[in-house]
């Protein structure tokens, strides 16, 4: 009996020794041959293919799902929940996330600490982009390749007709508060123009200045005064025909960017040019050079694409080099500003453009140095009052309110339809008066 116990004990010790040794043996990790990227559109794919040199022998797979109705998040969630069981080559290596829901992934174990793969955030990255990609303990899980301060992009010819000037400083002075903006809208209406082309055009200018999150610590849904202000403004705009009932992404709105368009102002950041304003850049029907950028009534930011490192990736070296390419590789970043009109996430690069008297955006604007305008706005961006529910709550509110603005339902019904939508989408959120 004693002998048996001794043998058993010895065996146990041996097992524990072997078990201890294991992690040490794993190094250095072998790099995978397949790199899977989840995304919701082709925007980053374009830059990736243009500027990043994929290591030899590695295949890059893009799994792209549109984000409408939360389809992208749904697909990504399924894949992440299955990540641990997936074969190495099927595992997600990197995925893209937007400001509206980045927290959901950053605060989970499905993303990994990028310092563990040897990447250190550079001082040149905008502070808010790092904060957005960090969990509650400040552990950073990814980087953003862009910074998204946003302003008002206006049609010069229409501004000339309405205000008698098309100079950015003078236009800005005419619309630097919402009261003034409304007054200009009335003037534009008199001349037969629309102030904006979508009922939700100004939504982000309000919603990204909220002083409280959509959902409080006790899971109560709350309406920030900024959201209420947006609803009130839009009611007035619809009633007076200052805007259209089209959604932000609808063809009815983007058709207004053709030379024949009758709309004076569009709200957007630098990515808006390439992503939303292709009609304005149309060689036959567009109006390149008839645009200028100003801050507008209220500084805000909109969107942004973060690249997050997925836990379980076997391509950590490639992850690190992608992050470096899009945050500190100044050759690439300079090209992205010059050729693609991006506002990149590197303060040195954008500062140089902002201060360069010879730089001007001629791809769509009239040669104005838009980087200088964005540079002035970018430092004020704060990352606060975000929740993991933002995308579907913002989308849902806009969709339900659109029916009210179109006149299909009254305001009360629209609001209650929104509550019902919240209840179906997020059962844990507590609704007002419920």
């Amino acid at each position, binding site marked *: 009996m004693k002998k048996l116990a001794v043998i058993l004990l010895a065996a146990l010790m041996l097992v524990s020794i072997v078990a201890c040794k294991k992690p040490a043996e794993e190094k250095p990790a072998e790099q995978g041959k397949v790199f899977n990227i989840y995304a919701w559109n082709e925007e980053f794919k374009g830059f990736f293919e243009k500027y990043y040199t994929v290591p030899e022998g590695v295949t890059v797979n893009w799994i792209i799902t549109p984000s*409408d*109705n*939360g*389809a992208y998040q*749904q697909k990504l*969630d399924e894949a*992440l*929940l299955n990540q641990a069981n997936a074969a190495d080559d099927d595992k997600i290596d990197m995925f893209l996330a937007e400001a509206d829901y980045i927290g*959901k*992934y950053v605060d*989970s174990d*499905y993303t990994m600490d990028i310092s563990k793969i040897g990447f250190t955030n550079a001082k040149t990255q905008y502070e808010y982009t790092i904060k957005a990609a960090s969990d509650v303990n400040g552990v950073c899980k990814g980087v953003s390749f862009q910074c998204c301060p946003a302003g008002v992009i206006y049609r010069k010819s229409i501004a000339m007709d309405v205000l008698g000037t098309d100079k950015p400083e003078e236009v800005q002075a005419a619309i630097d508060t919402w009261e003034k903006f409304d007054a200009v809208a009335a003037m534009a209406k008199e001349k037969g123009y629309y102030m904006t082309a979508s009922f939700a055009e100004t939504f982000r200018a309000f919603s990204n200045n909220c002083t409280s999150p959509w959902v409080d610590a006790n899971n109560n849904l709350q309406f920030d005064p900024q959201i209420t202000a947006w609803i009130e403004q839009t009611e007035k705009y619809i009633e007076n025909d200052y805007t259209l*009932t*089209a959604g932000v992404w*609808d*063809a*009815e709105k983007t*058709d207004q960017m053709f030379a024949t368009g009758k709309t004076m102002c569009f709200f957007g950041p630098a990515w808006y040019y390439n992503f939303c304003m292709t009609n304005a850049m149309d060689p036959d029907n567009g109006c390149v050079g008839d645009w200028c950028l100003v801050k507008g009534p209220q500084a805000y930011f909109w969107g942004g694409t973060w690249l997050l490192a997925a836990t379980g990736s076997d391509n950590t070296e490639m992850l690190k080099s992608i992050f470096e390419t899009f945050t500190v590789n100044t050759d690439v970043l300079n090209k992205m500003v010059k050729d693609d009109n991006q506002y990149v996430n590197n303060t040195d690069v954008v500062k140089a453009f902002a201060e360069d008297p010879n730089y001007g955006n001629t791809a769509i604007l009239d040669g104005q140095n838009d980087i200088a305008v964005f540079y002035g706005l970018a430092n004020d961006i704060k990352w606060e009052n975000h929740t*993991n529910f933002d995308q579907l709550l913002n989308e849902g509110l806009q*969709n339900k309110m659109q*029916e009210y603005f*179109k*006149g*299909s*339902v009254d305001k009360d*019904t629209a609001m*209650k*339809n929104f*509550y*019902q939508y919240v*209840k*179906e*989408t*997020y*059962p*844990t959120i507590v*609704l007002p008066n*419920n």
Partner: protein
Amino acid sequence: MEKQIRRKDGTLKSVSYAKWGYIFITPFFIAYILFTLIPQFLTVYNSFFEHYRVGLQEVGPNFVGLQNYKELFTADPNGTILILKYALNTLVLWVLGAVPQFVIAMLLALFFTSARLNIKGQSFFKTVIYMPNLIMAAAFSMLFFTLFSRVGPIQGLLENWGVLDHSFDFFAHKVTVRGMIALMNFLMWFGNTTIVLMAGIMGIDQSLFESATIDGANSVQVFFRVTMPLLMPIFVYCLITAMIGGIQMFDVPQVLTKGDGVPNGLTRTLVMYLNGYLRAPNYGMAGAVSVIIFIITGVLGGVVYKMLSAQYKDQSKKKPHRERKGNVL
């Protein structure tokens, strides 16, 4: 079927051919049990649990009994019991599409099979009317969405003609959105129904039509007294499959209204409601909605079958001399 064969030693050996029948149908039943029956029971089972995901966090499963069903039949903030509203939507949308679908299909089937009309180029027409069914419903929906959008060609045309003013929006009115959905379902399915009904009519003995005509029956009488009673089994089959398809109506309104069922959820169908819960995903509530849809389908299918087949039995009792050829189901 059993057959007896005499062995060489004189004893009888019985050979059962029936077993081959069972062997041949086994693969279907195995697949059916694995992929349909078991999931169906699991759906019912899931409907008794609170089980959903918020983001990446899973809540449940916790057994809650009939709580999910209770919730389904609780009024929403607007005071509407949504599942009833959506069931009514589904019914209205289906009837709006199915009535013209069956009337037109029946007429076309009669024309194409009529010996008197003897229409030329039948295969061409049959192909053309079947075409819309080959297009993916989502693509067809996108097409209508673009055609009827505020900047689409239809709006432009009607504005030019002075029929509409610019403020009109096809997607802001119950009548127009429901009309579009019904039109699409009609266009997609009338060809299919025509072909099935034609097969049914062609299975009827031509001499019956001839003798009815000789007896002095006009075409209306021939249709109601001869064609219809003999076509009933096929007709019931078409109606029940169309109805099941109708209850499951999803892709056309989902894509057309981007899942919102505009205006005010009046074009949201039961399966779109189910899809809302599947997206969340909320397994418990989705299970409960599925069970309700299953019950509705079962009850309606049973009622239609009973009603129509009883009528058909009466008819065939009255005319025992008429053979029921070609009524293969």
